[in-house]
């Protein structure tokens, strides 16, 4: 293979280093209005009155819009991928601080912002609930009635339900959990928690809507252009072909920019005013748009006398905040991997998506998996320690091997779990003596491995156009937000058609032009769209051969396309269009048992090994070494794949050690990069990034998705290493120096006073 496996620089390198890459951020249109959002100041309340009088008097204000105005163009203005629970602007109730209540439109964004600050809203405040376990009780009910979107069969039974915050409950039963726990030699239980975090794409959310005669064009920084078209058309009651969604490059996405975010709002405003409307959020506003689920995970294992885990029960509570977004999918699609990559015959899983009065939570690089791995790999390490077994040996004894069924009943295929674990152990020299430090600086090391199913079943469609001069263009609705999909697809097209990948041009998502794709999320693109791209290129190749036959060229000869076209049409004319779609097979989990023998078309495997130094006087933790490993199948572009692994791990390092949205009365008290600390260049430990080459037989040229795998193991590996160093166990993220110091002092019988 000449093109697949090449370490080709990204296609768009020049545009990005010169600052000329196209982002929605840059877009300005004639007569465009800028919108600024006035937001809820209370976490839960009925809207009594909205006073717009001062805002309307500000010079330069074009119009002030509330939820009632939105109803003039969209009578039922509720959206969401799983539940139609989110109003475009608040109607009767607000459900979290920061919820959009009104919008000021002006030619000058500074005018709009000043006017928006004058909007005064009176609320009848209601009690609020913030904790996911507390939300299991209906003492405070966030939504008066549940409104599932109807697209997901397993949510239909929730329609019209009242008096509950449970947006989805998923249950799995395998084997006989009670009997196995009863006969286990050891039964050990722990509870782990994760905090609310943020994606922090550096290009904050931005969207522009541009009305046409009977059409609407939306330019947006969004990972799911096809979904946006469908959802906006549904809101207006239009056919999809009246809505056009265009997406250039994204300044980061990480799962934030999936489904509808600002698009419904700018669309409604553009239809109300018949003018182009742009809304660009500030960094502070991003903290109220979409976040990562806080979780509580109760995990209990029964282990036999030989150190084999024979039973595991998992109760996971997902704090979805005020709107469901894709949380119910996280609860189910990630829920069934909650027992971890271990071969356990008796399993129970209960996974709950909960509404609370926090800012909404959705997908963030891992779709819930990092929260699960945090718990099951911390717990697994504790089991090994309780039994006096080496943590790596304990994992090897219990790990899911090729062909064995996972909790759901789906067999592991092309899943190099043991190889990833072995690679990490080898790079850490696990079997060799380790310097444990001395005095107040103690050293430890830890490992963790995790796995993830792909969201399924989902569809991708691709078009490959070969022009009359032989130059080739690929049309897909996959969004390149930095992960390198444009480049990988160009390599796949070039491999099939025997071209130079650098010469393949990629047309970015434009739903009038590029075909359907479910979305750029969940590490699905390289597998799903990659397969569609390969098939589309093969279709083009078949059609070129047919054209050569029509032109009377002898079969089996290898004429360049330009010559085939010239021979067939007598000049540089014509073109060949190859198309293909790809959708994997899938079987829904059984409604009673939660089991299915086909839950995913491929498995992602990732893990980490770390060495840490813990300062016992301050609790400060320094990661002195980080080894990341992932099964990426056969990489299409190893250089880009390694940077995905590295970037994901560093992001998770932030979620492990520093990032934490702090709330006070529902208000985020650290909604800025000054107080919400993401990793900077001084925070990067010495790292090794290992691509464990396996083969995904159903993937394009053996490849599989990778964008999230680097996140899986980082958090528990660090907690395991801290335990190894100083013998204390941190069970809540983030692992701050204060948390470690508190644990050390508690261990020594000298606990610090509470805050």
């Amino acid at each position, binding site marked *: 293979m000449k093109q697949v496996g090449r370490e080709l620089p990204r296609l768009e390198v020049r545009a*990005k*280093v*010169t600052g000329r890459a196209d982002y929605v951020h840059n877009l300005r249109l004639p007569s465009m209005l800028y919108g600024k959002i006035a937001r809820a100041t209370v976490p839960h309340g009925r809207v009594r009155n909205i006073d717009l009088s001062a805002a309307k008097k500000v010079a330069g204000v074009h119009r002030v819009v509330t939820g009632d105005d939105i109803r003039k163009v969209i009578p039922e203005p509720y959206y969401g991928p799983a539940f139609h629970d989110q109003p475009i602007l608040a109607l009767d109730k607000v459900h979290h601080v920061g919820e959009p209540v009104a919008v000021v439109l002006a030619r000058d964004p500074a005018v709009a912002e000043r006017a928006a600050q004058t909007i005064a809203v009176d609320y009848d405040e209601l009690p609020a609930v913030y904790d996911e376990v507390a939300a299991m009780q209906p003492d405070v009910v966030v939504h008066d009635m549940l409104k599932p979107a109807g697209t997901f069969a397993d949510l239909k039974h929730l329609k019209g339900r009242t008096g509950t915050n449970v947006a989805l409950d998923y249950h799995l039963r395998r084997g006989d959990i009670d009997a196995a726990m009863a006969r286990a030699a050891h039964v050990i239980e722990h509870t782990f928690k994760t905090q609310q975090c943020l994606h922090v794409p550096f290009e904050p959310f931005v969207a522009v809507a541009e009305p046409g005669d009977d059409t609407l064009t939306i330019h947006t920084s969004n990972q799911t252009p096809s979904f946006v078209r469908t959802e906006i058309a549904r809101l207006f009651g239009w056919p999809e072909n009246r809505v056009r969604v265009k997406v250039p490059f994204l*300044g980061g996405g990480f799962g934030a920019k999936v489904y509808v975010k600002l698009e419904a709002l700018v669309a409604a405003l553009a239809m109300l005013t018949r003018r182009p409307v742009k809304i660009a959020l500030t*960094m502070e506003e991003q903290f109220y748009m979409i976040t990562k689920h806080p979780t509580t995970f109760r995990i209990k294992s029964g282990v036999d006398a030989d150190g084999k885990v024979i039973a595991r029960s998992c109760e996971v509570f997902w704090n979805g905040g005020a709107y469901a977004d894709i949380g119910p999918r996280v609860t189910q699609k990630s829920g069934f991997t909650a027992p971890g990559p271990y071969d356990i015959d008796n399993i129970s899983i209960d996974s709950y998506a909960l509404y609370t009065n926090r800012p909404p939570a959705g997908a963030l690089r891992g779709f819930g998996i990092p929260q699960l791995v945090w718990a099951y790999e911390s717990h697994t390490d504790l089991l090994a320690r309780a039994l006096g077994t080496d943590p790596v040996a304990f994992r090897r004894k219990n790990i899911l091997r090729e062909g064995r069924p996972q909790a759901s009943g789906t067999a592991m295929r092309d899943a190099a779990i043991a190889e990833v674990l072995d690679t990490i152990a080898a790079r850490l020299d696990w079997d060799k003596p380790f310097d444990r430090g001395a005095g107040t600086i103690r050293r430890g090391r830890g490992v963790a491995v995790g796995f993830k199913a792909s969201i399924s079943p989902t569809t991708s469609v691709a078009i490959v156009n070969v022009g009359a001069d032989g130059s080739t263009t690929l049309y897909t609705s996959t969004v390149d937000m930095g992960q390198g999909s444009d480049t990988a697809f160009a390599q796949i097209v070039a491999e099939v058609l025997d071209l130079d990948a650098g010469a393949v041009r990629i047309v970015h998502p434009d739903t009038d032009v590029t075909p359907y794709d479910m979305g750029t999320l969940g590490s699905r693109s390289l597998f799903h769209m990659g397969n569609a791209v390969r098939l589309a290129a093969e279709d083009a190749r078949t059609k070129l051969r047919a054209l050569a036959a029509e032109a009377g060229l002898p079969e089996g000869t290898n004429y360049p396309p330009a010559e085939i076209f010239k021979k067939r049409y007598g000049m540089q004319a014509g073109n060949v269009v190859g198309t293909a779609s790809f959708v994997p097979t899938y079987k829904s989990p059984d409604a009673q048992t939660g089991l299915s023998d086909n839950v995913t078309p491929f498995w992602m495997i990732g893990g980490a090994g770390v060495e840490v130094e813990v300062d016992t006087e301050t609790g400060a933790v320094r990661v002195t070494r980080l080894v990341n490993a992932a099964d990426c199948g056969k990489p299409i572009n190893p250089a880009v794949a390694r940077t995905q692994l590295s970037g994901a791990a560093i992001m998770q390092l932030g979620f492990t050690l520093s990032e934490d949205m702090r709330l006070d009365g529902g208000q985020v008290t650290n909604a800025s990069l000054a107080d919400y600390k993401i990793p900077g*260049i001084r925070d990067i430990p010495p790292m090794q990034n290992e691509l464990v080459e396996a083969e995904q037989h159903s993937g394009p040229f053996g490849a599989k998705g990778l964008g999230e795998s680097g996140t899986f193991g980082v958090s528990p590996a660090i907690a395991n290493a801290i335990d190894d160093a100083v013998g204390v166990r941190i069970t809540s993220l983030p692992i701050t120096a204060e948390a470690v110091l508190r644990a050390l002092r508690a261990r020594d019988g000298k606990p610090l006073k509470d805050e």
Partner: protein
Amino acid sequence: MSTRTINFTLNGQPVSTDIEPHRNLVELLQRFDLFGARESCGQGLCGCCTVLVDDKAVSGCLYFGVWVDGKSVTTVESLDAEGALSIVQQAFIDCGAFQCGFCTPGFVLMVHQLLKEHPNPNDDDILHYLSGNLCRCAAYPEIIEAVKVAARR
């Protein structure tokens, strides 16, 4: 709102414009269709809006536009004005030192500043100069490598 007339040099060309005193440098540059300096955090913490004013890096989101009156402003768009990429830009490409590319112009300009003042930077110099630029895709290891490659060239 009243405006002020300012005259300054923009990427080597003398220019003049009327601007309201509350506009920041990023907004000023957008009037000249220059979008390489980008406002992200809005607090001078991320470095996406880095611009050189009289050859010194500033955060364009915190720097009022009127302050450039009489000064020389250099943006990322000047680096390949002759058609060829700068050594730093090429090193960023060769090392794969970015993913989404949103923060990249800020890093590129800051590395230019670093190498101008420290042609052979050590690791401390690199970390010191680049600690005011953040990259959420976390291409930091590749960026450090790119600085070293650029310095060697």
